[in-house]
């Protein structure tokens, strides 16, 4: 630090102060860099650990649906994520279709319909849904909800069975993809609602008053001023919710009675998601089995990463648009 004798005394107190700043600023920066390192580590370690099974795999990882990654003597290692990826997307899609309209309705209710004094409290109730651990959702879904849904499923199979999605025969246990999707929908409801509430409260009062002054009813005001303004936020929220539904493990693992098939029949048992498959298989897996599960996890990581980045992009574009 010191270059000449003469300046030494003048620099000393300043240098001391600089030291504190330097240490603090650098540890703050270090923490930030550590986060980047962790994220890179997640991707890197998953890739490294999945290699041993992927190289041993005799099946096609992306198009095959079978799962026997641990070869006994004279057997081939064969596994693929096709059915798992299909199940993951199917479950998330069911959740999204069910949750998004309801979430928009709830957000409208809280922002524009509920009595003002109750609005905050009612919003808090919806947030409580997000606080309940997924394993408790799973327990409730498995023991209580699936039985309650059975009559509805039989009704749907009878009258809507001509739609391939709802073809019978109905699973006798109710532990189907639709049940899992319904529970996932409840779980992502608060995420989408929070996002939609955010944008709906940000609709400028001048726009709402403009609509009302033209003689709009409350619904017409919402349709002309609120919904067009809030659309990007709702889409972003729905995608964040979808990211959550894609990666949700326990509720699916506990409710769904799994099988590795690609089937659109949501009233029959079958299908499986990546996350639930990992949770169920891991305790018994060894060697290439673990490695294969890590490879499946890598696929899940990639899908959720893409969905989340797209969601953030949509949301941030809305911000620019508003400001």
């Amino acid at each position: 630090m010191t270059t000449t004798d003469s300046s030494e005394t003048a620099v000393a107190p300043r240098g001391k102060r600089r030291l504190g700043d330097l240490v603090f600023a650098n540890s703050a920066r270090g923490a930030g860099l550590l986060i980047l390192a962790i994220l890179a580590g997640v991707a890197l370690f998953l890739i490294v650990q999945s290699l041993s099974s992927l190289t041993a795999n005799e099946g096609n990882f992306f198009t095959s649906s079978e799962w026997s990654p641990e070869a006994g003597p004279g057997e081939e290692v064969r596994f693929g994520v096709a059915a798992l990826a299909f199940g993951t997307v199917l479950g998330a899609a069911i959740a999204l279709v069910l949750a998004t309209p309801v979430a928009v309705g709830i957000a409208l209710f809280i922002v524009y319909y509920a009595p003002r004094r109750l609005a905050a409290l009612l919003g808090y109730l919806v947030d409580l849904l997000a606080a309940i651990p997924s394993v408790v959702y799973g327990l409730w879904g498995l023991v209580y909800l699936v039985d309650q849904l059975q009559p509805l499923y039989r009704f749907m199979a009878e009258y809507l069975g001509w739609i391939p999605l709802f073809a019978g025969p109905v699973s006798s246990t109710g532990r189907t993809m639709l049940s899992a999707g319904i529970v996932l929908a409840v779980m992502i409801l608060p995420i989408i609602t929070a996002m939609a509430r955010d944008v709906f409260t940000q609709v400028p009062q001048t726009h709402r008053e403009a609509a009302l002054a033209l003689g709009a009813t409350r619904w017409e005001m919402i349709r002309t001023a609120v919904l067009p303004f809030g659309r990007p936020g709702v889409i972003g929220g729905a995608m964040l919710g979808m990211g959550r539904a894609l990666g949700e493990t326990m509720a699916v693992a506990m409710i769904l009675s799994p099988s590795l098939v690609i089937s659109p029949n949501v009233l029959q048992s079958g299908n499986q998601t990546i996350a639930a498959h990992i949770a169920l298989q891991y305790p018994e897996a060894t060697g290439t089995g673990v490695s294969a599960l890590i490879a499946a996890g890598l696929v899940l990581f990639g899908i959720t990463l893409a969905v989340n980045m797209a969601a953030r992009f949509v949301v941030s574009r809305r911000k620019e648009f508003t400001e």
Partner: protein
Amino acid sequence: MTTATQPTATGSSGEGPDIQSSGLYSRQLPTYFPAALLVVCAAVASGAFFLLGAFHPVPVAAVTAIGYLVAVTTSSAVVENNRRAKDRLVTGVVYCCFAIAVVPLISLLSTVVVFGIERFDLYFLSVSMNGVIPSMDAGGVYHAIVGTLVITGLATVISVPIGLMTAVYVVEYGRGRLKQAITFFVDVMTGIPSIVAGLFVVALWIMVFGPGQTNGLAGAIALSVLMIPVVVRSSEEMLRLVPNELREAAYALGVPKWLTIVKVVLPTAVAGLTTGIILALARVIGETAPLILTAGMASTRINANPVEGDMMSLPVYIYKAVRDMGLSGEAGVYAEERAWAAALTLILVVMLLFLTARLVSRFLSPGKG
């Protein structure tokens, strides 16, 4: 219907007052009409189901709601006009949406309380599952509570410094590309599925300690991956709320930047920071999947040492009990009772954290008496 012809009618000046007055004075349903109609619908629906001998709250509520929506829309369309009818329909639908959200919440909480209370007592909270064989009417969650405390405590110790310092960097120091990158990737990290966080630690542990190693520390690290971005997000928001005047006042007194942050900024934001950390903790305390992978499922005894062997936790305890529900006879019944009682315990813990967070933000924040 009269309103639909309004624009053309006003176009010609001759037919003034009468048409206009019909536009202004529209027939309206009385204000008590929706409430009265709802009561009627509910009475008819429950009566019908009761006569059929199939009374059950859910279908009754569904039929009531549909009946109400149809009735309110048609009567409004007949008495008032189509626009009002549509408005009333949407109002009804929006109320229904909220009801739809509340139904699972109430159903879930009430089932957990009703079933959980069976086995939820001091004995259940104070003993472990050590030496309990499935058919024994015994055992409790003590070891799982200890494990949850150790694992989430460690996760907090890891996450808070990293998360808080990152937030300090982003708000106080950061600029340019690095700041953007960190903000962006923290968002990305928020979306990591919990099972992937678990797999990350599994992969790390295999590389460092070899395969098959599970312990509490691994669980804590997995939870940290999930907790850090939440802490960063909430801390960032809180630090931004600290007014710039406070920082400038400190600089003007010749206080160096780092001391300004430590002595002025952080203490000002302490209530919000604490609230955020508690809420982040509440979020990860119920995580199950990463702990199955990292802390194991085998432990039945009290283990408070995070680097030695499997460690049970409340959520994994619930999952394990659910798996044992398939056992025949008494064993399955006891397992289910344990699952509900542990679920009640876990929900109470989460609610307690939420309550604490609210109290902290109410009583610790400056300027709010």
